[in-house]
């Protein structure tokens, strides 16, 4: 089962839930793979402390123009939807930051003057973290293209067992890339006005991608009642409420797992998994 842990807004505790869930399930002898798809700010490793045994660079193809073959016909520039290649009469300029790597320019060039060369966008690293198989992507600083790196992380999805994908925050292409072929999306939300607003956006995105989903309320406090009416109205089950607890915040700050300091946490994670499995079936 592939479970993506996502949130519209950052900092709702998505990584806390994802890492603790992974370890709690591994303790019950489930085969668990943890994939950190938040490649702009990968933090799962802080809590899981993996021993990285493999590292691979990930690159995207970008065009390179052979000046001697190029006749300045301008077809490439007309084709490119992202202005990543521009023909200026006597020179062709490429802007690899803008390139989506579609391969179109080399396809339309009548003179065979464009070839594709790899440009490194980041690394995928993996290795064991106790009983959990750990995989993470790490975006190179200054690189903008996130989806190809997430795709590379996802080539490590196991055929069987449980995969937990820690998604990036937000609602745009990196999130969609992460959750695309998940069996279930768990949306971690905070009971605050910002939290409600961003949960709404996240729900719209997950609904577009058409994946079964439910909500986990993190840092629930007796006063905060913002999320329940909304979830009831749109018919999204709330699978778990984790109370606001300074101990959890402090454990997180130190980079430790909550299941080690808050005894009830492991039980919550087990119950959560059971409910997700149930929801994914119905």
């Amino acid at each position: 089962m592939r479970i993506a842990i996502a949130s519209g807004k950052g900092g709702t505790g998505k990584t806390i839930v994802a890492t603790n869930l992974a370890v709690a399930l591994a303790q019950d002898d489930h085969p668990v793979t943890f994939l950190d798809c938040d490649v702009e700010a990968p933090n799962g490793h802080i809590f899981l402390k993996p021993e990285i045994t493999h590292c691979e660079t990930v690159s995207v193809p970008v065009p390179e123009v052979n000046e001697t073959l190029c006749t300045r016909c301008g077809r490439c520039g007309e084709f490119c939807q992202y202005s990543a290649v521009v023909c200026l009469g006597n020179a062709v300029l490429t802007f690899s930051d803008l390139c989506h790597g579609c391969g179109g320019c080399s396809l339309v060039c009548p003179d065979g003057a464009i070839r594709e060369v790899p440009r490194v966008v980041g690394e995928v690293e993996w290795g064991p973290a106790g009983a959990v198989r750990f995989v993470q992507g790490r975006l190179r600083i200054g690189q903008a293209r996130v989806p190809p790196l997430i795709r590379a992380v996802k080539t490590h999805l196991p055929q069987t067992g449980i995969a937990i994908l820690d998604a990036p925050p937000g609602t745009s292409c990196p999130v969609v890339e992460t959750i695309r072929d998940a069996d279930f999306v768990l949306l971690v939300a905070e009971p605050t006005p910002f939290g409600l607003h961003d949960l709404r956006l996240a729900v719209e995105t997950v609904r577009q991608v058409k994946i079964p989903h439910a909500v986990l309320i993190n840092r629930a406090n007796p006063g905060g009642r913002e999320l329940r009416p909304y979830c009831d109205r749109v018919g999204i089950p709330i699978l778990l409420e984790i109370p606001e607890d300074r101990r959890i915040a402090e454990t997180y700050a130190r980079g430790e797992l909550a299941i080690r300091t808050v005894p009830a946490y492991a039980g919550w994670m087990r119950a959560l998994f059971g409910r997700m499995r149930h929801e994914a079936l119905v």
Partner: protein
Amino acid sequence: MKEIVVLSGKGGTGKTSLVACLAALADRKVLADCDVDAADLHLVLAPRMLQREEFRGGKQAYILPDRCAACGECAVYCRFDAVRFDGPATQVVGKTYRVDPIACEGCGVCVHVCPAQAVELAPAVSGEWYVSETRHGPLVHARLGPAGENSGKLVTIVRNGARDIAEARSLDLVIVDGAPGIGCPVIASMAGASMVLGVAEATLSGKHDIERLAGLAVHFGIPMLVCINKADLNAEVTAAMNGWCRMRGISVVGSIPYDRRFSEAQAQGKSLLELGDGVTARAVRALWRETRTALESRR
């Protein structure tokens, strides 16, 4: 005119709550909410919308089923795995193809390779942007459609909109609330700015995030300031962050304690400063004084 971009490397560090405070403190400025994925600033600033524009982020391919000969060329060439089998069988062909609008990046390769001219590109509306008036001055903000593409482009539009207003009204400052992460929308909100203010949370992951953000600021040659939020959550991490910044020549311009009144203020649609004075409010004012001095000392 100067432009300061408030970023965090990761969401949820309290960035927007602090921007709301800076909005109350700074004079003669325009606000730009460039966290277009999850724009929250308007929840505090209660904007009165003056202008609303459509954002077309890119294009989208469509396959005309009656023309499709089901040769599958498009599926071979699409690098984004966006062409899928679909469609009812007709008398002529057993199947047709379909473009998955969520995966499609609108590159047009399928249009080019289709021998039956069955694919067309059409502009996709993927959001809106707005110019509004608030109690703390003009605000430019946006909303990216669900599963939207090209958030970087929308960020650039919002920033330019804010700069135009600043210029037209001879205002001195643009305060940008940026997106989380270090990818395309962040690069789009940072490039060419006068200064980055990084809001870091005093946690081990917060430290990692701010270090990566600092790397990005160096990459683009933009001076950076740091504000440590929830500084009393973990004294060790706060000390380590201070040390790291000192080593890199980054000034730490503020230390804000963990304060639940930030959530209270949010619930009331206010900035923390509007809740009255206190230790945290004083720390926020000090943060703004330091930031302003640093901004003024540049050029």
